């Protein structure tokens, strides 16, 4: 370990809590919590997870997403049929008035396709979420461990 490594580790230790602390985004009536994805050694498709609360009186819908780190971001869900997992694309994800949409493992998720580089643990990247009412909202995703089953934040 040389000085550069130490500096890098020090920087990571300083920045990681900042990323975690800043991990909530507001857009109109929507509060968007803990966007996260998993690290991967290769540029395999990744999943993005986030919880979107709607504090307003009108329902909203997540209709799409985009990010400069991926060629395409699709909305997907995970359907179980007789013990078989099937991933299917969905047109939109409802964010009910006074309720929330939960994108989480084994459920709705963003599918990040055509990643331009592998995601490394601790990396952050911007994703623009597109809502029917709230419009475009840019949030920051945090990359967790490859085997993370829920956000550590």
């Amino acid at each position, binding site marked *: 370990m040389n000085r550069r490594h130490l500096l890098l580790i020090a920087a990571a230790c300083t920045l990681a809590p900042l990323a975690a602390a800043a991990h909530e985004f507001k857009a109109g009536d929507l509060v968007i919590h803990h966007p996260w994805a998993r690290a991967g050694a290769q540029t395999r498709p990744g*999943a993005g997870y986030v919880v979107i609360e709607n504090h307003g009186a009108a329902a909203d819908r997540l209709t799409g997403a985009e990010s400069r780190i991926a060629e395409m971001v699709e909305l997907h869900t995970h359907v179980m049929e007789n013990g078989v997992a099937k991933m299917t694309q969905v047109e939109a994800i409802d964010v009910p008035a006074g309720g929330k949409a939960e994108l989480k493992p084994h459920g709705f998720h963003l599918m990040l396709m055509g990643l331009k580089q592998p995601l490394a643990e601790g990396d952050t990247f911007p994703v623009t979420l597109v809502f029917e009412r709230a419009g475009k909202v840019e949030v920051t995703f945090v990359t967790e461990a*490859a*085997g993370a089953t829920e956000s550590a934040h």
Partner: protein
Amino acid sequence: MSSVWTRRALIAVLLAALVLCGILLFKLYERYAGEDSGSADIGGPFELVNQDGKTVTEADFKGKLLLIYFGYTYCPDACPTALGVMAAALGKLDVAGERVTPILISIDPARDTPEALKDYVAAFHPRLVGLTGSEEQVAKAAKAYRAFYQKQPGATGEGYLMDHSTLIYLMDAEGKFLTYFGPQATPDEVAEAIRRYL
């Protein structure tokens, strides 16, 4: 008139007999299915290729409990979650976890070459074994474990997804089936179950 009633009575008796037969058969089926299908039939011999390109069989894994998951590296959601649960469960077992070998068997050998698996498995657990092989080798292993998989209908090109069963199997040191975990199992539940068999 009376012949109509006789016929009706006969039909009623026949129907009742049929229903009784049905119930009896179902009970018998339940009994034997319960005895056989759950345990004895899951698992068995396989020949696959590990992440280092070496051909291995079930014999290479004897002596340790096995945690086996059938998945693929292009799987964005279910597989990383299951592999994460497996790795976290072994972490919770601490030193005792070393008596368990976690294994990912690819059900997408067309894309999951040994080289592709090597980096992939290492990201989850230092001892996670990645197995792939020819289409036939993989099909045979999946059949032994009653794991289902198929390329999504209508999929074209390289970016396809696979439909697949998502159970995590726990096998004993002889390769015999002990129990399985569904996709919602937590690391604590998996670790707790393993502890019972260690």
